[in-house]
C-alpha cells in the first residue's frame, strides 16, 4: 500500500516514517507499505487531476492532509468514510476543537483522523534576550515585539541577522497571518455564519499589514536561503521565531516558548495533520490495519516526537508533563483553522495574494492599495465560491 505524506521543512519526519514502516513490516510481514513525499501544492493538483482523469492520475491508498481539506475533498468524493475501515472511532478521545476537522461540513461521518496537532507560539533564545529578562514574554503586545526587534536589530550588526526567523520557506501563508488578524480583534477571515469573506474588514487588513511590517522593517527574512533544519535561529542569526512546532534544542538548551504577542485574551490557533483513505484505495482492509497501528500510542508518539508536534488525543495532550506552561495556556483556549468546503481554495487565493505582495516588498515596491486590490479579488472570488458550493 502506498502513503502520500506531506513535505515538511523537518527532514526527521521522513526518517520517522521510514523507521515506523520498517517496524510495521516486522509486525505484519505480509503487508507492504511504502511512502512518497508530496508538497501541499502537488497534492492539491493531484486530487483535482484525479477527479478529471482517475485512470491516468491514481491516488495513493492513504494520504496525509491538512485537516482543513477534509470537508472539500470528502464532498468531492475523494475520501472514504473511516469508521467502516478503522472500526468505531471514539470521538470523545479527541479534543473538541479537532472534531469538526474530522468531518465533512454538515455531515456526521468521519473522513479523516488527526495524527498530530500544531499550535502557533512565539519561541525565543533566552541567551539572546537577556536584556529583556524583566519582560514577561507571554504578555507581549505587538508593539513590545516590534520594540524588542528594533533593539536587537540595532545591537546586532552581523550579516544576515534578523531578530525573527522565518520558518516558512514559502514566505507567508494564510495560517501564519491569522494570529495577527485575531490580534487586531478580528474574528478571522469569515463572517460568523461563514456566509461571506471578511478579508476587507479593517482589523483583517491591519493584521495582515502587521505581519508584512516585520519584513518591511527588516525584522524577518523574506525570500532568503533557508537553512538545513536549525535555520537562522540555530546559528544565532535570529533570536525569536513564530513556530507551529515544539521548541527545538539549540546546543544544550531548549528554546523558550511564549504565547503569540497579544494573544493572552484571545483564542489561539491550532491545526492538525490528518490521515484519510482515498476512494482509489486498492487495499482498504490493509490500510485500516496500518492506520490503526500508526495511531497506537507508542507509534504515534514516536512520530510526534521526531517532528516536534503535539498529540491529537485529549488524554495524551493533557498528560504531557514536560509541556511548557505557554502551551498549557494555548491549549486552554484554542480553535482549529476552519474546515468547510471553500476554505482550502480561499487559503490558496489568499496565500497567492500574500505571495505577490511579498514580491512587491522584496522589490521595495510595496503599496497598500495593491494589497487592498488583491484582497478585493480574494473576497470576490471567495464570496462567489461560497454562493455556489
Amino acid at each position, binding site marked *: 500500500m502506498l502513503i502520500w505524506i506531506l*513535505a515538511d*521543512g523537518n*527532514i526527521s519526519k*521522513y*526518517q520517522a516514517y*521510514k523507521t515506523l514502516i520498517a517496524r510495521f513490516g516486522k509486525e505484519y510481514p505480509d503487508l507492504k507499505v511504502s511512502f512518497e*513525499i*508530496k*508538497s501541499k*501544492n*502537488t497534492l*492539491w*493538483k493531484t486530487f*483535482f487531476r484525479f*477527479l*478529471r*482523469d482517475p485512470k491516468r492520475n491514481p491516488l495513493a491508498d492513504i494520504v496525509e492532509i491538512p485537516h482543513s481539506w477534509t470537508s472539500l475533498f470528502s464532498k*468531492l*468524493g475523494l475520501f472514504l468514510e473511516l469508521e467502516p475501515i478503522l472500526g468505531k472511532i471514539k470521538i470523545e478521545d479527541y479534543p473538541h476543537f479537532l472534531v469538526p476537522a474530522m468531518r465533512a461540513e454538515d455531515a456526521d461521518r468521519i473522513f479523516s483522523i488527526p495524527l498530530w496537532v500544531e499550535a502557533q507560539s512565539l519561541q525565543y533564545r533566552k541567551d539572546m534576550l537577556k536584556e529583556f529578562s524583566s519582560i514577561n514574554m507571554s504578555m507581549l503586545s505587538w508593539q513590545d515585539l516590534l520594540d524588542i526587534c528594533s533593539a536587537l536589530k540595532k545591537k546586532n550588526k552581523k550579516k*544576515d541577522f534578523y531578530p525573527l526567523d522565518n520558518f516558512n*520557506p*514559502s*514566505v507567508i501563508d494564510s495560517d501564519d497571518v491569522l494570529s495577527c488578524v485575531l490580534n487586531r480583534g478580528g474574528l478571522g477571515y469569515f463572517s460568523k455564519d461563514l456566509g461571506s469573506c471578511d478579508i476587507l474588514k479593517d482589523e483583517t487588513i491591519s493584521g495582515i499589514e502587521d505581519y508584512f511590517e516585520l519584513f518591511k522593517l527588516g525584522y524577518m527574512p*523574506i*525570500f*532568503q*536561503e*533557508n*537553512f*538545513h533544519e536549525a535555520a*537562522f535561529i540555530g*546559528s544565532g*542569526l535570529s533570536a525569536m521565531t513564530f513556530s507551529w512546532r515544539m521548541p527545538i534544542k539549540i546546543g544544550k538548551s531548549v528554546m523558550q516558548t511564549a504565547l503569540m504577542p497579544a494573544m493572552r485574551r484571545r483564542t489561539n490557533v491550532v491545526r492538525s495533520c490528518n490521515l484519510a483513505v482515498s476512494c482509489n484505495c486498492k487495499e482498504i482492509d490493509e490500510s485500516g490495519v496500518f492506520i490503526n497501528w500508526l495511531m497506537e500510542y507508542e507509534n504515534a508518539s514516536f512520530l510526534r516526537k521526531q517532528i516536534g508536534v503535539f498529540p491529537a488525543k485529549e488524554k495524551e495532550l493533557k498528560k504531557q508533563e514536560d509541556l511548557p506552561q505557554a502551551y498549557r495556556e494555548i491549549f486552554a483556549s484554542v480553535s482549529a483553522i476552519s474546515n468547510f468546503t*471553500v476554505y482550502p*481554495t480561499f487559503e*490558496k*487565493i489568499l496565500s*497567492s495574494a500574500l505571495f505577490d505582495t511579498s*514580491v512587491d516588498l*522584496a*522589490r*521595495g515596491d510595496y503599496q497598500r492599495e495593491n494589497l487592498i486590490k488583491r484582497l478585493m*479579488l480574494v473576497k470576490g*472570488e471567495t464570496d*462567489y*465560491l461560497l454562493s*455556489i*458550493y
Partner: protein
Amino acid sequence: MKDIENRKNLGEEDFFKKISSVAYQESGCDGVSVFHCLHEKGFLKGLYKYSRGFFYEFSEYIFFEGKEYFRHSVLSKRPFWDKVSHVWYYYYPVEIKGDFDLSGFSRENIVFFRFEKLYGSKPSSRKLEKAKEVVKNGMENFYQVDFEILKTHYYQSINTLARLGEIFASSIKTEDSYKTIISGLQKHFGFDRIRFYVVKENEKKLVGAYSVDVSGKVKSIDYDRIILEPGSHRFADIVLEKTQQDYSRIYGDKVFYLPLKKENRPMGLLIFDNLLSQIPISLEEKDMLKSFSSQIAMAIDNINLFNKIEELSLYDELTGLPLRRYFNSRFQEEFYRAERFSQPLSILWIDIDYFKEINDTYGHQIGDVALKEAGRLINSSLRKIDFPCRYGGDEIIIMLPQATYTEAINLGRRLLNEIKNVMIPVPFSSNKEVKLTLSMGVASYPADALKPEELLAKADEALYWVKSHGRDSIKAYCEIKSPQGS
C-alpha cells in the same frame, strides 16, 4: 545515468529524483536542491530536494534583490559559491535544451542545482566536478522527457478534437443536446465548472441551459435568464461583444469566457472556470476551446433548426394545431394516465359543416381561412391540459383530460355559439360573408369506451349521428345510444 537515457517515459519528478540522487552521492554533500530560475520575476523557485536518502518537493524562494551574483550567474551561465552562516552553497546553473513547458517553466529554461554542505569546509572540488558532470549529462536527456510528454499531450489533444467533433455533430438528434455538449466538454477537458448559456432570439434573452461540475454532475440552470442588451449583465456584454473589460485579466487564468457565434449572430456563451481548484486554464486549452467555438455554435444552430423542423412536422402550419401523429402519441399517454388514476377523459370530434361546399364555391383560400378561424377559436377556448389536433381535412379532435362528457358538451356548445360570430369576408361575390357552423360528437372514458381506439370510434359515431341529423349541433355517444337519442 543509463537509467535516464533508457527511460524515455520518465516523468519530470522521476527524472529529477534520479539525477539529484546520483549527484548527491557523487558530490558528498548534505543535500542537492533543484531550483527553477524565474529570471523575469527575479527569483529562484525551489522544486525538488534530495537529502539523506529522501527526495521531496520543497517550496523555497530565493530572490535576486540585493544578490546580483544570481543575475550574473543566469546571464553568464557560470556557477558560484555562497555561504550563509555555517552552510556552504554551490549554485550550478544548467540551461535545458528542448522546448518544454513543465511546472510552468518559461522558455528561458535554466535550472539551478544547489549543492549544500553543512558545517566544516567546502565540498571537495573533485567530487563536485563529478556531480556536475552527472547533472550536465543527465540534463542533456531532459528533452526526451519533455518530448515524450509533449507527444502524449499531442495525441491526447488529437483524440479530444476527434471525439468532441463527433459529439457536437451527433448532438442535434438528442433531446438533451445541450447536456451532451457540456458533458462532452467536461469529460475531455475537465474543469471545475462549465456553464452553458444559449441565446433565445425570439425572447431576446441569454438563457441558462446547463452547468456541470468537477465530478461530472449536470444541473439545469434554466432559472438564469439574462436580458440580451448591452449593459444588462456582463454575460450579455461578452456575448454582444460590447465590453471593454478584459475579464480574463480580472479572474486571472481561472475563468475563460467563450462567446459562441455563427455568421456574426450570437448563439450562446460557455463559461469555463477553475475557481475551486485555482488551477490555471492553459493557453493551449483556451486555443483548443476557441477552435471548437464555431463547431459548438453550429451545433446550437443545428439544434435550433432541428427543433424548428420537429415543430413543423408536429404542427399544422395553417391552424397552428398539432397534427394527427403528435395527437396519437399524446392520446396514448393521456389514456394510460386516465386509466391509471381512474380519471375521465373525453374526446370532442368536430367537423366544419359543408366545408367541401365552401371550398368548391368560394375557393380553397376561403376554405383555408375557415380552417384557420376554427383553429384560432378552438386554441383560445381550451384549458392548458386540453389537446386539440387537426385530424385530417376539416376534422378537428379535442382531447379533454379529466373531463366528463357533460363538461365536453359544455365546451362544445360554447364553441358552437362562438363560431356563429365568425364572418369570413368573400371578395368578388354576391354573398359578402361566409358563416360557419360546426357538428360535434362526444365520447368519454370510461362511460363509453375502455380502449383508446374504441373511444375515438364512439366519438366519430356521435359526430356521424349529428351530421346525419341536420348538423350545427353536438351529441354525446351515450345520448345517441339512449332511447331518446336514437
